């Protein structure tokens, strides 16, 4: 059992990496959600200019790998002289990247509400603002929550990419330990198990939300 001692230390180190992964994902998901909702609103309710701006943004973001943008920022940040720690640099990129996918989720939520909901609210004499606030948005958010949660799981997986541009989190931690212990299977499988626990929990939660969202219909 002696050979397991360094591995046990390794696993402990992985958990600290996982903490960083969760922190990074949480820091990115909040602004991503916020910007995603704004983009969705602009695309559904905005004028022609706003709509085409959003469509252009989505086209560009969804056609380029996240890794390209992360690497770009990694090389660019020092050049621009913006004094932003690398952690916040990647958080901003991830947030802007995932905002595009979030906006699709929220837009689908708004658009998949039956027409009758809008008509009913209007026939009750509600102002547009009131209608959106108490009729449309609560239901749209409920419809959007299952895909939102699976997008969050995707974001957690995507944080592994920041290890390529040199940030320390779970994947970077596992690479460091592998370099020291030369036990790639044990360590990488350990890291995979941690990612799995996080993402599968989110996936199950998404399934639960999906079942619940169907109940009302």
């Amino acid at each position, binding site marked *: 059992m002696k050979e397991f001692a360094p591995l046990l230390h390794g696993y402990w180190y992985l958990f600290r990496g996982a903490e960083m992964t969760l922190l990074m994902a949480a820091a990115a998901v909040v602004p991503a959600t916020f910007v995603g909702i704004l983009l969705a609103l602009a695309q559904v309710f905005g004028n022609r200019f706003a709509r085409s701006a959003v469509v252009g943004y989505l086209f560009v973001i969804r056609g380029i*790998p996240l890794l390209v943008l992360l690497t770009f920022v990694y090389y660019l940040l020092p050049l621009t002289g913006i004094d932003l720690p690398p952690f916040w640099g990647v958080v901003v990129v991830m947030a802007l990247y995932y905002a595009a996918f979030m906006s699709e989720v929220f837009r689908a939520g708004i658009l998949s509400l039956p027409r009758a909901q809008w008509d009913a609210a209007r026939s009750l004499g509600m102002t547009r603002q009131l209608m959106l606030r108490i009729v449309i948005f609560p239901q749209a958010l409920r419809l959007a929550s299952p895909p939102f949660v699976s997008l969050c799981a995707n974001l957690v997986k995507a944080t592994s990419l920041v290890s390529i541009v040199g940030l320390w989190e779970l*994947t970077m931690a596992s690479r460091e330990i592998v370099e020291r212990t030369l036990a790639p299977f044990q360590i990488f499988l350990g890291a995979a198990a941690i990612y799995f626990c996080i993402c599968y929990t989110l996936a199950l939660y998404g399934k639960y939300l999906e079942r619940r969202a169907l109940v009302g219909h």
Partner: protein
Amino acid sequence: MPLDPHFIARLIPALIEGAEVTVELAILTFAICLVWGLIVALAHSTRGPLSWIAGAYIQIVRNTPLLIQLYIVFFGFSMIGFGLSGFASGLLALCIQNGGYMAEIYRGGLQAVSLRQYEAGRALGMRRATLYRTVIIPQVVARIIPPMTNQAISIIKDTSQVAAIAVMEMMKVAEVWVESSANTYDVFLGVAVIYLALTSVAGLAGKLFERQLAFAQ
């Protein structure tokens, strides 16, 4: 200096050479996963231990990052004396992950065909093979084209992660050029444009295929 024409004239051929590897990886992954995903989906639709194994496979590969799978294949296999080249490791990891996603797409397509379609076919006295060939499969194919198109786009973007194990695909070529020239803007502009072009072509191909099928029906 950004947008230096002499630099771009030398850069473009190098990037295109990298893009060839990117395209090769993406097409191979897509083609292999079309088959592998179907096998997994069919295994998942049976009853018994085979279904359980397929289900576990789908959940595990979908809820762990591609990058970790890549490291397990590349570093893990070489540790046990079963070393694969970077390209082969990348291809294997891409297929492992996307096979899981494609299996879910097939499953969704099969589930979306209502049971009444089977009953109606049988009521008309169709043989099993005829029923599948003329009724079920055309409907499944029509339904899976949009998600398959998205998966193809996602595969093209995923190939960039293979740069992490030093395969000279477009992302790695770009990194080398940035490191050696410090002309960050031009390199990333070129890479972004080529990725956008590749993903747009995949998206358009999916749309065309969809339309052609709509005519055929």
